[in-house]
């Protein structure tokens, strides 16, 4: 695979590419000075700077330089390996270099962007980091990847609108789907909605249609009243166990996972006199409206009337406050939706929406807000300095725009509360080894470049478990996550990383510390001669963490790509200044 010949006597030929990243790096780091410095480093036979190393032109320059300068190692000093390493590895591979002979140096996220007021120190740090990267690059070894078969089955956790949409989409492409829903019914949050904004469509026909599609599908297996009990393995090859409420376990294999567990509505206990009767949440109001409508339909009452005279809605209850600083995005439009419904039921009902800022962005939602204004719904701005006071029969609010205190009599107070992280999100995140943000929502690999991926290959995310979003956005995410999952499921094989552990059997004395410390069962002791045991690593099971190498008392176990020698070389390069 690699065209590189490894000889101990000759100096390894390293090429360094320093990226301007437009002005992201070059605005604070002297890129020309870093490039010139790179040329002075041992082993470096070629260095150049690029406006964007990741551009087509930049990648072509890398490939050309590999050939014209017979480069054996490539170092790119640019952004972060977390987003761009695969791209540069591919460029190396295309030029005939083993992709593991590439080293990434991060001089943007950890340098130019965080030392913007100290350009000289930032430039010095960039030089140090390049020196460390080159020191490691000289010791890199070509690594081999393993091909592993893919189980063409998707596991989807969460049987709400988003999980079901992804399931139906994957099933339509011919894949098997295992859909796991914690509740006894499919449908999730949408089961509790009456109307959908901004069209005031009925929610139930939509969700029930999707449930029927799932139930009709021959390739979707549904596990209701069930949760994920255990998951082991890696992309293409997961061993999954699901547990139902009776404690029965079902096991199956899956190649990819989509997390679509949704969110829950914050319950405002102890706030604004919340009692679930005269002071309710928007979701509780929605149920009241639905029940009322049903009642009216059953009794043939015409016109449809509710007996509410005045309804006061309070926005941002438990949101955009120090302990929960985010905007939940859906609450303004939800309030407008329910306000319009109240007016529809009874045009005499006065509705007051007490808001801090109205978030109804976009062509449709701004029109929706205008429609609410035209329908006579009153918007009154308050600030956190003077929060509304809910008293017996009256809400007192300081109107920021009027500059005066208002007292509004009410029959019903409705609190608009944010979506918060789903119950059990933390446990699920730990099981899948994917991160949550500080609010307990699932954290994607990159907000712009990989919005539906986790950093872990083969695991994807969609819907409000990621962030509070409108239904049409989350449905688009469901299609997106299904498409991302299909990129794995359509393959016969996935390649495992070459970053695994390897034993030098001549140094191994068979103590078994590596076997004890490994969580994945990758190393095993093998008897090579009577009474003589050595460890051997199954590269397919190894995840490359390096725990075994750290505990190996003889140095027999190497964590490839992060060997003792390679890490030590970086430590030395960090501290031995060569200005």
């Amino acid at each position: 695979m690699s065209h590189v010949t490894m000889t101990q006597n000759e100096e390894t030929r390293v090429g360094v590419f320093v990226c301007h990243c437009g002005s992201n790096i070059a605005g604070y780091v002297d890129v020309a000075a870093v490039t010139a410095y790179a040329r002075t480093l041992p082993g470096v036979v070629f260095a150049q700077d690029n406006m964007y190393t990741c551009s087509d032109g930049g990648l072509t320059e890398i490939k050309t330089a590999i050939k014209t300068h017979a480069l054996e190692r490539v170092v790119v000093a640019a952004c972060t390996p977390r987003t761009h390493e695969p791209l540069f590895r591919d460029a190396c591979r295309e030029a005939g270099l083993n992709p593991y002979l590439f080293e990434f140096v991060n001089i943007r996220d950890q340098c130019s962007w965080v030392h913007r007021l100290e350009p000289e120190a930032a430039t010095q740090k960039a030089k140090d980091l390049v020196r460390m990267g080159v020191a490691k690059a000289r010791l890199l070894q070509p690594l081999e990847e393993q091909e592993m078969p893919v189980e063409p089955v998707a596991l989807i956790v969460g049987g709400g609108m988003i999980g079901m949409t992804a399931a139906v989409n994957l099933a339509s492409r011919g894949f098997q789907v295992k859909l796991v829903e914690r509740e006894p019914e499919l449908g999730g949050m949408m089961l509790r909605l009456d109307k959908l904004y901004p069209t005031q469509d009925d929610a139930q026909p939509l969700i029930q249609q999707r449930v029927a599609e799932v139930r009709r599908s021959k390739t979707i297996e549904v596990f209701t009243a069930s949760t994920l009990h255990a998951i082991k393995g890696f992309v293409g090859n997961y061993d999954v166990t699901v547990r139902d409420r009776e404690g029965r376990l079902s096991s199956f294999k899956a190649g990819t996972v989509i997390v679509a567990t949704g969110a829950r509505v914050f319950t405002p206990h102890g706030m604004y006199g919340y009692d679930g009767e005269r002071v309710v949440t928007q979701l509780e109001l929605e149920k009241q409206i639905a029940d009322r409508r049903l009642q009216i339909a059953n009794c043939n009452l015409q016109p449809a009337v509710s007996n509410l005279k005045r309804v006061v809605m309070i926005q941002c209850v438990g949101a955009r406050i120090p302990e929960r600083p985010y905007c939940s995005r859906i609450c303004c439009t939800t309030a407008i939706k329910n306000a319009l419904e109240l007016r529809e039921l009874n045009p005499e009902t006065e509705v007051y929406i007490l808001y801090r800022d109205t978030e109804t962005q976009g062509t449709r939602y701004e029109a929706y807000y205008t429609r609410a204004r035209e329908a006579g719904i009153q918007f009154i701005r308050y600030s956190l300095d003077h929060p509304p006071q809910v008293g017996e029969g009256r809400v007192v609010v300081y109107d920021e725009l009027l500059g005066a205190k208002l007292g509004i009599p009410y029959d019903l107070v409705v609190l608009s509360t944010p979506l918060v992280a789903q119950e059990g999100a933390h446990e699920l995140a730990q099981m899948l080894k994917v991160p949550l943000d500080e609010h307990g929502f699932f954290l994607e690999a990159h907000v712009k470049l990989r919005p539906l991926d986790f950093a872990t290959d083969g695991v994807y995310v969609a819907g409000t478990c990621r962030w509070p979003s409108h239904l049409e956005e989350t449905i688009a995410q469901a299609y997106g996550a299904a498409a991302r999952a299909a990129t794995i499921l359509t393959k016969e094989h996935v390649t495992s990383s070459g970053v695994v552990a390897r034993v030098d059997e001549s140094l191994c004395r068979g103590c078994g510390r590596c076997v004890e410390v490994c969580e994945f069962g990758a190393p095993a002791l093998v008897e090579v001669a009577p009474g003589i045991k050595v460890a051997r690593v199954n590269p397919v099971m190894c995840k490359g963490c390096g725990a075994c190498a750290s505990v190996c008392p003889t140095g027999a176990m190497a964590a490839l790509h992060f060997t003792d020698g390679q890490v030590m070389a970086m430590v030395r390069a960090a501290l031995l200044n060569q200005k």
Partner: protein
Amino acid sequence: MTNQAEGFQPRIVVFACNWCSYAGADLAGVSRIQYPPTTRVIRVMCSGRVTPGFILEAFRLGADGVLVTGCHPGDCHYISGNENAVVTVDKTGRLMNVLGIEAARLRLEWISAAEGARFARIMTEFTEQVQALGPTALKDTTL
């Protein structure tokens, strides 16, 4: 802080795990949170990859501080690698006492991928902590 230590720019080696802390460092960057340019990050796949040897080599070569960073307990991408890091740092701290290096020059911190602000704060705090200790006594005796 003593006069001597004023303007003292410590040299700090930071080991960051690929999945949590390195991502946290990236987030600090994306969020443009500023912190002192005193740290040099070495990426490892897991905090459990860090050995006493790596840490002691850094001190031998004149590092004023070493910071090991990993995923929060329970969040380790490799299940328990960060627990190994606890053992390593604890063990190395005791070795440092024997060698006459202040234990406060070594620190273990958990930083998640979502904690850019926390990454920056820890870099700042640890820099101040090491500045207060002054330059390492090993600095003059190194190569």
